[in-house]
């Protein structure tokens, strides 16, 4: 589109735009500068942190031929965790971890807080989704043989993440503090305690004593919202670092193309 020329009002010669001197680069106009502000800001940060290299290293990776939708299950599980983290933070704003108020505050969230039922539902059903997605992801890694050398450590980290997710499920189950929560926790602590030798002490550690007592709920709450989420976030970081470092595997049905000249029968 041709640029519209605005009529220039009659001005004294001192105020007229001067013609360009030969050999001089054109001065950047404010509009152009504004257009480049974003790039300038990014540049400013990058010059001081060299973050762009790391970002390029993480985001622009080569992926093998045959990469398909099954490879998104890991990210899906991570986003399930992020969703749990966000909804969990907001639920914590209304929840009271005390044996006398926990049930009442859960009821308050569900019935009275604006969108409370929705956020609590997201957290409740999201936890199930997270476990399902982790299992699907684990199955994908297993059946594609992606746990093999050099990715064994990532399999182990993933297994620890699975166990930590179970710990989250167990500790979160108690928090609504209804009959189901209470008895499920009793049963879970007793299953823990039925391991030989160390079992009884682990059971006591879970309950915070010989009986389900005043500290059990707050103990579970602290494990559920502080201890384990921190560990999970850190381990997800390590998991993703190793994926970036080692790359993903091609699906097992794709055979690597071997150069004609290197074929054994040819040689």
């Amino acid at each position, binding site marked *: 589109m041709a640029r519209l020329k605005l009529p220039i009002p009659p001005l004294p010669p001192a105020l007229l735009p001067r013609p360009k001197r030969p050999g001089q680069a054109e001065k950047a106009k404010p509009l152009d500068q504004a257009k480049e502000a974003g790039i300038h800001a990014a540049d400013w940060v990058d010059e001081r942190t060299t973050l762009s290299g790391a970002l390029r290293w993480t985001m622009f990776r080569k992926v093998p031929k045959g990469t398909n939708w099954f490879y998104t299950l890991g990210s899906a599980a991570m986003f399930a965790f992020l969703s749990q983290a966000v909804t969990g933070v907001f639920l914590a704003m209304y929840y009271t971890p005390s*044996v006398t108020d926990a049930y009442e505050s859960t009821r308050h969230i569900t019935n009275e807080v604006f969108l409370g039922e929705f956020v609590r539902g997201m957290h409740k059903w999201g936890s199930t989704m997270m476990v399902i997605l982790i299992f699907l992801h684990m199955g994908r890694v297993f059946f594609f043989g992606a746990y093999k050398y050099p990715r064994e450590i990532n399999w182990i980290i993933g297994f620890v993440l699975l166990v930590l997710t179970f710990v989250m499920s167990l500790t979160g189950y108690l928090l609504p503090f209804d009959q189901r929560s209470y008895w499920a926790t009793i*049963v879970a*602590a*007793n299953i823990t*305690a039925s391991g030989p030798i160390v079992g009884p002490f682990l059971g006591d550690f879970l309950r915070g004593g010989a009986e389900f007592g005043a500290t059990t709920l707050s103990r579970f709450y602290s494990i559920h919202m502080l201890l384990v989420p921190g560990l999970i976030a850190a381990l997800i970081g390590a998991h993703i670092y190793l994926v970036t470092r080692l790359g993903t595997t091609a699906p097992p049905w794709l055979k690597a193309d071997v150069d004609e000249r290197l074929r054994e029968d040819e040689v």
Partner: protein
Amino acid sequence: MAKDRRQTKSKYTADRNIPGAFEGETVTRRRFMTGTVHAGGIVATAAIVLPALGFALGPVFEKKETRWEAVGPTDDFTPETYVPKVFTESYGIGDVGKTTVYVRAYNPDIDGEKDPEIPGGGDFVALSTRCMHLGCPVRFVAASERFICPCHGGVYDFTGQVDGGPPVRPLDHFYTRVQDGQVEIGPRYSVNSEFERFPAYRDPGQDLDGIGQYLYPGRFSTPKLD
């Protein structure tokens, strides 16, 4: 020349031409500083970590206070059937700490010889409703004279002995005593299938026959009763 420098190195800093070395010194100052800083770091970390761990683990070792709670006059209870009573087993948590207990008078015809050393006298039998499979609450069904667990079908006979299902040992008991004409319920204790008494009560699912009593050690924090 450089083939075996390590062996020719003297252990004295003075012999190694280290500036400022003095007679008989074997540890360089750099090494000494490194060691000191590491030791200081360990002490500082332990000063934070150990109290925090103790704080988290403390309740496991805490000794519980022995409490007795009256559940009714002695006339309320007969040797023939159980009367359900509610008492507080865990203090400070409101209704959650309350539990049902089934009480009856001691019946020599079923229970046999009374243990002469049992604290409180044992004139009354108080059975816990805690199922010895995984801890669900059992209820007494008078028609069949059995305790039935709703969760996985554990069944106990009139004395609390396992009659069927997954439970590994008879129902827990509570010590009982009579004070001012009232039956009082005291601490819990476990029994094995011979009705041998284990004052350090075990959690459900922990077998107390044979090797079980060693595989599932009792708590150190069990209070002594006399």
